[in-house]
């Protein structure tokens, strides 16, 4: 138990504050080796996490680093430093607080290494980097506590796995280190807590009072939402009305591109010149910092944002949260709503803006789930091995290590508690030799085993390259965007692929401005303000999340109701019409609708398995249809359905859903597919097979560089059981392939297929026709298309006669 020095009580009293029960509880249990607090946003979670530290440091006797605070966002680290400095200064506590992120200046980093502050605020990546330093043992020697903020968000991905591995290391450097996790409301606190604790030790959990239910509803709009799309642009006027009525509004979007488009539309309609900002991960640090500062100063009426503002930054007076587009999962919705009304015991206010007709239904289902306090989520698998490979390299950077000791350490890390020695040895072998069946690199090993049995880097200089590539965040290659002649002020970043598709004169949106592409210079996109064309839409990394299984089930159940009085008229009529001309999709059956449209046969499969699984299903179904001679030409998958079009009519859909056939199709299809290649790219760069960042200036467009797809193809052909391919397969199956959701769908429908042959597109299928992400099927037909395109180009050019190159047999 840590007692609160009287100084603190006085300070609280002076501000008219009282300590929340869970904050007191955190103090009472401050000695627990592992402790997790579950509290809603606005519950004073962060202060609860820091109170024991402040109390312990109050007498000034501790020297060196005492508490490490890790958050998923750089902005959060900065924000917390600001907030924490206030009580420390006002109480005159002898405590030094600093933050350290990728944005911290080099000189400051150096000083922090030589003379660490009492409290260091950082991110998982910066922590991993610090652990890679030779002097890590000295820096962390006196460390007493580590506070992991927003642990629920971190543990959803590899950043959390990396952080927990770092914790395992810290435990070795500072035995007896106490771990504290701060989490928003989650569906399974015990599972989360078990990842935090040193395995197999227990983790105590404190659950704060969740506070009153949020006040949440759908925004009523004059215009009905469009049939397809994800932008929410139709609701701009009503959103502006709401912004006017509230002090500060956060407007959340599911993707960066949508945020940009919406912001642009908002500006065009913003006749009253309301101060509105935009914030997302592709904007430059400066732009984001300006928006954050303006927000804290209360200068903005609204801020258009994405997940980059999802987490617990204290934005002060936010009294309304608007979610554009269906929230896709209930847990995230609840956590986002928590951003509004940052006061304990006051209900949060939120409005949902469905982006299309079907999302109206999804929003309705999400509202019901929130009311019923039902959160969704699916358990994550064990810690992925690519992250462990990187951890082994990081460990090697810090100095020679013993493999048995490292294995024992990794076994204490929650996500890796179940790892076998063979798996660990595979990772070590991969890091040391490449792990290939062909033992080609004996001379050039990355790690060497010394005569005393310890492992070390063969070439100490490689530590620099390893450190440059630390981290598990996978963004596509991004290029900076700068105003021509605008000095050193980047506006933000766009994907390299998007940049290379631009021709001078093209315009696009960034940071809410329309800019004109001029030239690409040394990895920087130069733009000007002369924007005289309709802007194109920049593409950003960040895949759309699929609707959760739980939410999909709720939607299916809702569709079975005789009527939907709470829905707007347009959506009700649309659903009634569907029931009239076809059927409603059911949880336990597969509804297939076929119709002709635009000279093609279409088949719509309403299987509600979520975007990724529906796309996988699209690939598998078209593959089967190709072998059946139905000549599929393409498909589109949404969260709810897959629409396939082709040259011939599908008359007997049931055999397509034979689980055995589908699984077999998956095996054959998986190796040669783009999803695998994309997953491979991420896995290979995390594991250190490929390096994104090189010490010298990266060149562009030169022949010396080649695509990771080539590596994937080569490895798949010559070394199919290689560790990195195995990790890729596992990850793709869980992630983008999402075959578990296909299995779940097959399980609940058990081969019960209903076919409706309609004369024209049904109401549900009609919306699918307008979806954008259409995927062409690479079959015999497509190859012919490429040939036709080549012939057409040749003919159009009028060059066919020149020298008459001809096709001939050799």
């Amino acid at each position, binding site marked *: 138990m840590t007692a609160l020095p009287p100084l603190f009580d006085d300070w609280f009293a002076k501000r008219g504050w009282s300590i929340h029960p869970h904050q007191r509880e955190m103090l009472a249990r401050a000695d627990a080796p592992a402790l997790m607090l579950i509290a809603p946003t606005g519950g004073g979670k962060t202060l609860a996490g820091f109170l024991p530290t402040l109390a312990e440091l109050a007498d000034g006797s501790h020297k060196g680093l005492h508490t490490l605070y890790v958050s998923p966002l750089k902005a959060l680290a900065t924000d917390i430093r600001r907030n924490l400095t206030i009580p420390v200064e006002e109480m005159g506590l002898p405590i030094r607080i600093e933050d350290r992120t990728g944005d911290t200046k080099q000189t400051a980093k150096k000083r922090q290494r030589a003379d660490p502050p009492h409290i260091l605020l950082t991110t998982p990546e910066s922590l991993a980097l610090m652990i890679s330093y030779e002097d890590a043992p000295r820096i962390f020697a006196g460390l007493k506590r580590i506070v992991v903020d927003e642990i629920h968000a971190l543990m959803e991905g590899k950043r959390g796995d990396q952080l927990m591995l770092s914790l395992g290391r810290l435990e070795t450097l500072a035995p007896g280190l106490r771990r504290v996790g701060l989490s928003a409301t989650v569906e399974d606190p015990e599972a989360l807590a078990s990842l935090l604790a040193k395995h197999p030790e227990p983790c105590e959990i404190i659950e704060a009072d969740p506070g009153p239910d949020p006040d949440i509803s759908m925004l009523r709009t004059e215009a009905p939402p469009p049939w397809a799309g994800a932008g929410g642009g139709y609701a701009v006027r009503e959103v502006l009305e709401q912004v006017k009525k509230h002090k500060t509004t956060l407007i959340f979007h599911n993707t960066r591109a949508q945020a940009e488009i919406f912001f642009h539309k908002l500006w065009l309609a913003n006749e009253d010149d309301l101060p509105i900002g935009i914030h997302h991960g592709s904007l430059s640090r400066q732009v984001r910092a300006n928006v954050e500062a303006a927000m804290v100063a209360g200068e903005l009426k609204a801020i258009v944002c994405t997940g980059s503002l999802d987490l617990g930054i204290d934005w002060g007076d936010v009294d309304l949260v608007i979610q554009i587009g269906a929230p896709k999962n209930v847990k995230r919705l609840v956590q986002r709503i928590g951003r509004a009304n940052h006061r304990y015991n006051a209900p949060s206010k939120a409005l949902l803006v469905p982006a299309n007709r079907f999302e109206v239904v999804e929003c309705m289902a999400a509202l019901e789930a929130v009311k019923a306090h039902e959160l969704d989520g699916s358990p994550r698998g064990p810690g992925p091995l690519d992250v462990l490979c990187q951890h082994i390299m990081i460990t090697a950077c810090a100095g020679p290590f013993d493999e048995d000791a490292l294995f024992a350490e990794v076994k204490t890390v929650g996500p890796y508690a179940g790892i076998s020695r063979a798996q660990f040895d595979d990772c070590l072998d991969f890091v040391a*030799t*490449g792990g*290939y069946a*062909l033992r*080609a*690199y004996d001379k*050039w090993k*990355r790690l060497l085993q010394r005569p005393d049995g310890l492992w070390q880097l063969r070439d100490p200089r490689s530590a620099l*390259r390893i450190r440059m590539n630390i981290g598990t965040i996978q963004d596509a*290659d991004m290029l900076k965007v700068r105003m021509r002649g605008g000095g050193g002020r980047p506006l933000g970043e766009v994907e*390299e*692929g998007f*940049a*290379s*598709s631009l*021709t001078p004169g093209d315009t696009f949106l960034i940071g809410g401005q329309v800019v004109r592409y001029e030239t690409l210079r040394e990895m920087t996109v130069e733009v000007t303000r002369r924007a005289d064309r309709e802007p194109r839409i920049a593409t950003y990394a960040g895949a759309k999340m699929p609707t959760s299984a739980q939410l999909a089930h709720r939607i299916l159940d809702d569709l079975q109701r005789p009527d939907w009085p709470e829905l707007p008229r347009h959506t009700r009529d649309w659903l009634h019409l569907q029931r009239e001309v076809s059927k409603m999709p059911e949880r336990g059956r597969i509804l297939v609708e076929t119709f002709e449209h635009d000279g093609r046969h279409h088949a719509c499969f309403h299987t509600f398995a979520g975007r990724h699984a529906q796309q996988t299903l699209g690939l598998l179904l078209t593959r089967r249809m190709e072998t059946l001679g139905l000549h599929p030409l393409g498909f589109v998958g949404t969260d709810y359905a897959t629409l396939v079009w082709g040259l011939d009519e599908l008359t007997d859909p049931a055999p397509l859903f034979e689980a055995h056939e589908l699984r077999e199709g998956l095996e054959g299809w998986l190796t040669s597919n783009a999803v695998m290649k994309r997953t491979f*790219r991420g896995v290979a*760069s995390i594991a250190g*097979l*490929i*390096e*994104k960042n*090189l010490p010298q200036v990266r060149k*562009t*467009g*030169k*022949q*010396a*560089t*080649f*695509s*990771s*797809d*080539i*590596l994937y193809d*080569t*490895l798949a*052909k*010559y*070394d199919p059981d*290689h560790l990195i391919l195995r990790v890729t397969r596992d990850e793709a199956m869980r992630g983008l392939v999402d075959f578990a959701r296909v299995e779940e769908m097959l399980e609940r429908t058990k081969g019960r297929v209903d076919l409706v042959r309609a004369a024209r597109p049904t109401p549900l299928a009609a919306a699918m026709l307008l979806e954008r992400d259409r995927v062409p099927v*690479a079959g015999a037909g*497509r*190859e012919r*298309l*490429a*040939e036709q*395109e*080549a012939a057409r*180009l*040749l003919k159009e050019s009028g*060059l066919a006669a*020149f*020298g008459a*190159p*001809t*096709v*001939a*047999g*050799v």
Partner: protein
Amino acid sequence: MNAIEIPFQGETLCALASGALLWRARDLLIVSDLHLGKSERIARRRGTMLPPYETRATLERLEADLAATGANGVLCLGDSFDDLDAATGLEPQDRAHLVSLIEGRAWHWVEGNHDPGPAGLPGVHHAELVMGPLTFRHIAEPGAQGELSGHYHPKLGLPGCGEARACLLFDATRMILPAYGAYTGGMPATAPELRALIGSPGFAVLTGSKPLLVPYPARAGAGRGRRRF
């Protein structure tokens, strides 16, 4: 096997889908930029250990082309090895494989910027080589006539037809071959360096499952960027 027959400087050259060029009259298969031993060189210089199978993949492709065409001569247009140490550092089985292809064939190594000297393998080394009306050199020279070269690894995409593919570029006076090696990236065919070399009318032959003949694009924007490292 399908090929594009190209009348060039009074000769006929056949562009294969693999990126090789067949000069039937001389019984010669021409390939460029094999970059054998690239993964070994990267491991040696950078410490990253890429899958060490690119030499095998490239040689298997070459072997298939030789079998399909029955060519008795081979001309490698430079950058056959990622560097000269890579040539000596080939895995024993890869080296044996290469030697088995060379044996019994007239084999010409034209040097490139990556392999500026004999690599210690059978075959004849040339700085550049003239055969009849054709000149073979690694890097194209301005104003050359009847020149075949490599070096640039040109690639080109067709609108709406997927990713850019490695391609042969040619006009009436010169040809620039695609990179034949497995671990090779590409330079967009419309890059200024290549625009300066290919005159009008110009053509490209895309590699892939079948060779595709297309006109050399008249304006920028056709060669799409790929992720690189």
